[in-house]
């Protein structure tokens, strides 16, 4: 099968010529027996199935699905990676300053950098957090920054996920699988370790403990339960961190403190690594009918007897309408030029931009401001006329709810098929951890790949797969 490189391909310049990063890999690949590779490919899926690595996609049959895994790694060299690390570090710090400010003095609004209505009318802005300084002044302990590449020079930031970003467990499992399947590749390439993610996460959670608890902090991971799509990851991380995996029903506020129910009675909790959304955290403060959270949790939090990571209200900074202001936010708080570029974004709330969007829907990708997981979006060039017309009405009805971006030509990477390598679009989710104004970015990340030909949607909830991602150490 001939390898087609229509867009920017990270491995091949054209079908005969391989880029430096991939030369050793492609040579190795050419010498492999295809039947053997096919077998290893299915071994990989079996390995995931037996270990129970799954991602539940909400559907009628209620089945657990495996996220397809591709055995061809994605390779990024040190120079490219170094720029990414600097760019993400800058972004994560700026976002934390922004959050402290927006729930504090709101200097950024006073200086006219961000329009006030963007905050005021935003459901992700939690009034309960106004005037509150979280422990260690940290909001976004854990961030998942999505990057895309369009040509040889640039990675762009597509999204900053700072609510409850997931995917780190797949990053680690993918590496484990690759080492099991192809140990010989790791002697050919020097690849940075990514399994220190859990250790680093454990450290930042310990550091985030409120000052009032002067002891070895008791950290728990709060999950919505086994029916949640990302439950596998919750259990995986709790296991790696050596902490209890709890549900709301295991926790209770007693005498101003948060406690968990153990076989020997109640035990105090100091840090919650939460994997449930803000609105479910505390039925007394948010959604009254939430069974996932803990009544009275917010009061304990406001008294600084417990740390919640990420802090409630963090979502205001990864909202897709705030996204377009991130370069300004970096300039405002750090006085620096953004290292990583944003994707051009049209804000439908601004009249001129709305008109442009409505006139050019067939060329644009339109997203809901609070949407995620690839739901509720329109990919103009691939949509039918009726779909476009329908979406147009939705935008006109509520322009505040939408932003639009040009259809980017995402880079492609080779994936393995029985007939040989073929190119597919990819993005990259990077994981950054923040404690005491220090950011650590885990080397690698989760490459998500659109398995359908020409598709640009890489989300696992939409049939995307993943790849191991290698950062070369030299």
């Amino acid at each position, binding site marked *: 099968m001939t390898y087609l490189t229509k867009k920017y391909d990270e491995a091949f310049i054209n079908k005969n010529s391989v880029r430096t990063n991939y030369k050793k890999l492609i040579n190795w690949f050419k010498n492999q027996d295809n039947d053997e590779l096919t077998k290893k490919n299915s071994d990989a899926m079996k390995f995931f*199935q*037996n270990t*129970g690595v799954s991602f539940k996609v909400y559907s009628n049959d209620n089945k657990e699905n495996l996220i397809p895994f591709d055995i061809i790694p994605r390779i990024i060299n040190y120079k490219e990676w170094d720029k990414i690390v600097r760019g993400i570090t800058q972004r994560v710090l700026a976002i934390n300053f922004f959050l402290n400010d927006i729930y504090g003095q709101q200097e950024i609004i006073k200086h006219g950098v961000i329009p006030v209505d963007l905050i005021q009318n935003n459901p992700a802005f939690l009034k309960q957090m106004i005037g509150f300084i979280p422990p260690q002044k940290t909001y976004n302990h854990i961030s998942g920054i999505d990057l895309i590449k369009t040509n040889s020079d640039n990675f762009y930031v597509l999204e900053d996920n700072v609510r409850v970003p997931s995917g780190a467990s797949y990053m680690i499992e993918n590496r484990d699988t690759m080492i099991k399947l192809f140990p010989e590749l790791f002697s050919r390439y020097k690849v940075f370790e990514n399994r220190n993610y859990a250790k680093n996460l454990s450290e930042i959670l310990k550091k985030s403990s409120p000052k009032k608890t002067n002891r070895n902090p008791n950290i728990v991971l709060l999950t919505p339960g*086994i029916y949640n799509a990302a*439950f596998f990851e919750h*259990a995986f991380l709790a*296991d790696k961190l050596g902490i209890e995996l709890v549900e709301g029903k295991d926790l209770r506020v007693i005498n101003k403190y948060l406690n968990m129910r*153990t*076989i020997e009675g109640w035990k105090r909790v100091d840090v919650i690594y939460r994997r449930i959304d803000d609105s479910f955290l505390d039925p007394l403060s948010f959604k009254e009918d939430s069974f996932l959270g803990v009544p009275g949790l917010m009061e304990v939090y406001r008294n600084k007897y417990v740390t919640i990571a990420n802090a409630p209200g963090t979502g205001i900074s990864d909202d897709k309408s705030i996204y377009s202001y991130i370069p300004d936010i970096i300039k405002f708080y750090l006085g620096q030029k953004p290292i990583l570029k944003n994707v051009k974004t049209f804000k439908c709330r601004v009249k001129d931009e709305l008109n442009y969007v409505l006139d050019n829907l067939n060329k644009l990708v339109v997203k809901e401001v609070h949407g995620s997981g690839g739901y509720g979006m329109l990919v103009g060039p691939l949509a039918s006329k009726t779909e476009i017309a329908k979406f147009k009405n939705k935008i006109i009805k509520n322009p505040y709810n939408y932003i639009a971006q040009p259809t980017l030509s995402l880079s492609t990477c080779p994936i393995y098929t029985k007939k040989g390598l073929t190119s597919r679009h990819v993005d990259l989710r990077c994981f950054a951890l923040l404690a005491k104004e220090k950011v650590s970015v885990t080397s690698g990340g989760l490459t998500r790949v659109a398995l359908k030909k020409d598709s640009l949607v890489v989300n696992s909830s939409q049939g995307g797969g993943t790849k191991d991602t290698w950062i070369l150490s030299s």
Partner: protein
Amino acid sequence: MLGSTADSLFWMFRYIERVENTLCMIESGFQLYLLSSNNLYNEWDAILKTNSIRHHFLKKNNSLESLNIINFMFKDPKNLNNILLLIEKARENARRSRVSITSEVWEAINTCWLYLNEELNKKINESKIQTIIKNTREKIALIFGFLERSMLKNEILNFCYLGTFIERFDNTARILNTRYYLLLDEKKFRFEGYDNFQLEMILRSISSYRSFMWKNQNEIKANKVSYFLISDKDMPKSLMFCINETIKNLKSVHKKNFTKNNSFLNAISIQKKIKQKNTNFNNYSFLNSLFKLNMTLASNIEEEFNFQ
């Protein structure tokens, strides 16, 4: 440890043990079916009663047809103790307590679940029944093997074993309860149609026929079978063995002050009762009271350790 984790561990192993016990019963019934035995219907009747599913089965079926019963026990949703549902619940609890068990134990449970789903979700072919039972029992043995070899010897393991032995006690007590009339003292009362064959079937339904014969010089007698199932401390399915293991694990999990806990006191009283009855078992109410005491013991454990 979280109370809810103890809950999940306890129930995970109750369900796994229940799968194993149910498989043994299906196997003993299926053997009779293959031999076209005259006792086939009595045997199925007893098996359905033991599992408290006779009523549910007869709602759907007019007769005790072997393959229908086997299908019912394997996967009929009307049967809340069907194998497919039991393994589903076992795995669900394993998922809940994923952080507490080793990846070896988890993978053993997960592969057992994958296997049963694959085999039972299609039409169950008569020729495959024995293979399915054999393979599943092997997979369950793997779970217990990894439990023993890969887990720390701490309270996590105690709750796994508490679930196992409470459930096994329940199962043996149910079998005795359903068929107590076979175990009556022969001199006092002889049940019509009583013969050694039925005693043999009791032993087969807990797959302990060979070990009984080995211990008793190939001679089957009612009082010896009773002793074997109730009082023999060496027999891994006997009531005595189960209660001894339960006591051992309760001591270890309570550490200090175990003598003050209801669960411990209750377990000791069960042990005493069995010891006192060593020679004479001809009493339905005796068996029934043991069965009920074991249920109380289970709820004592759930209360004392803050299960949900």
